[in-house]
């Protein structure tokens, strides 16, 4: 019967072409949109985790309350011991300390007088220890524009745009003017080893990457760090697992009333990230529902038109003794075949477009000029195993719903009036 129905569909283009095209377009858009949103979410989570939040982050309670102000006077002390404990108790994660700091980068002339100066957003990470994951997290090999990675605690990397603005070359001396952990003015000289471009507007505006030891010395933060970041070993964020780990860690310090006791936060709990991710997921789900809804209405309409056009055919079939249920079933089966065909082709086209944007990306840097979020300027789609099925179900569902609703008209035909209708 399936072969019979399929042959009928192929021979009568008016029954197949328009509905297949409708499903195809809908499924293509669904698959592409899903992958695009998936990519945007991945980009957002990945960039935030690498540059700012980690998958989980340990801070002092006092620091955590004012984290957006980077209050290094409230930083964690005794970081070495705390790191050992974290590595022992939570071996599933990679733990790495960081210091975020703000300040001015002052470039001296030959006489030691200020030649150029600009505000800098600094990040001190463990660049030099053997086995440190930070060079990999920051993809230093890929983002380096000029010069080389730092080879000592007195060397730094600065963003290329910032370096060009200040007319700084690799090898030049730069003086960091910042604030020590005690609140004093910190003045420290560094050598600019190289320049970098992350493709993240918030970083490329004026970032400075330095080795942790160099900044700990400059900011009087021996054995102290503002934050200890934890990353799952495969660098994939799992919200529930992260929340479990954070709850376990925080329970251990529940009885400690010291405002400098450590506290752990998940990525989703930091700086409204959870709300933002929930909003992105809601929009993604909403888009899918709208597509299914619109497709169903269009296909319902197509089914109604088909029923009208096939009014005579259905009448003859009823007159010949075919049951209404059998006809209704055959219409639904036809629609499922249309849905399957449209979904397969739509999924293939949607995946092809997604793979292209996954490889090449789309530069949205012009929209990110004043962005403070850690989002890559190049947005990419992300194809996942779910991408292969995400369009298929709505494609089938929409055609099924369309045919089911429009096909109900069959049950309203009266056998007693069939001959009169056919004669007319």
């Amino acid at each position, binding site marked *: 019967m399936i072969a019979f129905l399929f042959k009928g569909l192929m021979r009568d283009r008016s029954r197949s072409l328009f509905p297949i095209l409708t499903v195809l377009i809908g499924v293509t858009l669904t698959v592409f949109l899903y992958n695009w949103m998936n990519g945007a979410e991945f980009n957002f989570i990945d960039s935030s985790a690498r540059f700012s939040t980690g998958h989980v982050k340990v801070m002092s309670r006092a620091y955590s309350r004012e984290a957006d102000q980077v209050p290094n006077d409230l930083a964690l002390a005794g970081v070495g011991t705390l790191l050992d404990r974290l590595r022992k108790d939570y071996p599933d994660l990679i733990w790495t300390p960081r210091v975020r700091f703000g300040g001015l980068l002052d470039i001296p002339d030959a006489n030691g007088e200020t030649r150029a100066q600009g505000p800098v957003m600094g990040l001190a990470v463990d660049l030099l220890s053997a086995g440190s994951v930070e060079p990999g997290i920051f993809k230093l090999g890929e983002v380096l524009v000029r010069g080389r990675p730092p080879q000592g605690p007195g060397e730094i990397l600065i963003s290329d745009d910032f370096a060009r603005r200040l007319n700084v070359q690799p090898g030049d001396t730069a003086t960091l003017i910042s604030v020590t952990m005690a609140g004093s*003015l910190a003045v*420290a000289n560094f050598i600019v080893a190289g320049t970098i471009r992350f493709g993240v507007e918030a970083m490329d505006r004026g970032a400075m990457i330095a080795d942790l030891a160099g900044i700990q010395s400059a900011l009087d933060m021996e054995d102290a760090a503002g934050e200890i970041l934890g990353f799952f070993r495969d660098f994939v964020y799992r919200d529930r697992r992260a929340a479990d780990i954070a709850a376990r860690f925080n329970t251990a310090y529940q009885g400690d009333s010291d405002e400098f006791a450590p506290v752990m936060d998940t990525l989703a709990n930091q700086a409204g990230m959870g709300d933002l991710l929930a909003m992105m997921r809601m929009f993604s789900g909403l888009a899918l529902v709208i597509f299914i809804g619109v497709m169903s209405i269009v296909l319902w309409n197509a089914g109604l038109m088909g029923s009208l056009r096939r009014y005579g055919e259905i009448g003859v079939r009823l007159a010949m003794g075919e049951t209404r249920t059998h006809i209704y079933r055959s219409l639904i089966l036809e629609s499922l075949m249309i849905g399957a065909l449209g979904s397969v082709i739509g999924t293939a086209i949607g995946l092809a477009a997604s793979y292209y944007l996954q490889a090449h990306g789309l530069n949205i840097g012009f929209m990110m000029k004043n962005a403070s979020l850690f989002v890559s300027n190049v947005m990419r789609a992300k194809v996942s195993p779910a991408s292969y099925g995400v369009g298929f179900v709505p494609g089938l569902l929409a055609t099924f719903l369309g045919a089911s609703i429009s096909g109900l008209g069959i049950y309203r035909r009266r056998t007693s009036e069939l001959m009169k209708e056919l004669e007319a």
Partner: protein
Amino acid sequence: MKRHIPVWVFVVLGSILAGALAPTGDWILQKVDENIGSDNKISRSLMIIHGRRGSRSIESRSWIQGDEKSFTEYLAPPREAGTKMLKLGDQLWTYSPSTDRTIKISGHMLRQSVMGSDLSYEDLMEDRRLSELYAAKVAGEEESAGRSCWVLELTSKADETAYFSRKIWVDKERFVVLREDRFAKGGKLLKRTEVKDVQRIEGRWIPKKIVFKDMLKTGEGTEFVLEDVRFNAAIPDSVFSKASLRR
């Protein structure tokens, strides 16, 4: 027949006379400036900063000429020792021995804390006489630190003041400011100072111990202890030069 002058005439005349003799805000402010101001001054002081993580002390020596020039060298603790600061008019430089760099402090950096204390660079810059910077109005009389005081409300009359308005409690007898609240233009209280010890040195009443409290910061404030001061001492002009920062 004797004619009696009614009592109310005495009351009215007395009030007018008292009003005429009552000091004005500007006069009180001038007396404050006269007490504290001098041509030259060499001092040694200690700042005890009470932060959230504990207290630390910073020792410094300052050379001040009039209200335009000052030079400060930090002596302790070791991390701060050798750091120097030079103020010439409205410009401020700091020298860091570890980097051998002289940095000009300007813009928003002026609002930053000096050595983590409750004092900002702007506070340090404000050496000009109060009577030149503010218009004063007597708001009342109160007791502060067990001394009878005039309460003055000061409103800025110069653009370069760090605080738009201040409320000060001036010792009626010694013309020393015993307490002070400093406000932003919007009326927000930014800083409070309280004098804990006043001593007579070289014929002047000098606050020996002042507690500064930045009201926007947590912590217990910063104690400023004047350990030693010499007025009208001879200071060579070369002290107030950028070259002396590196010496």
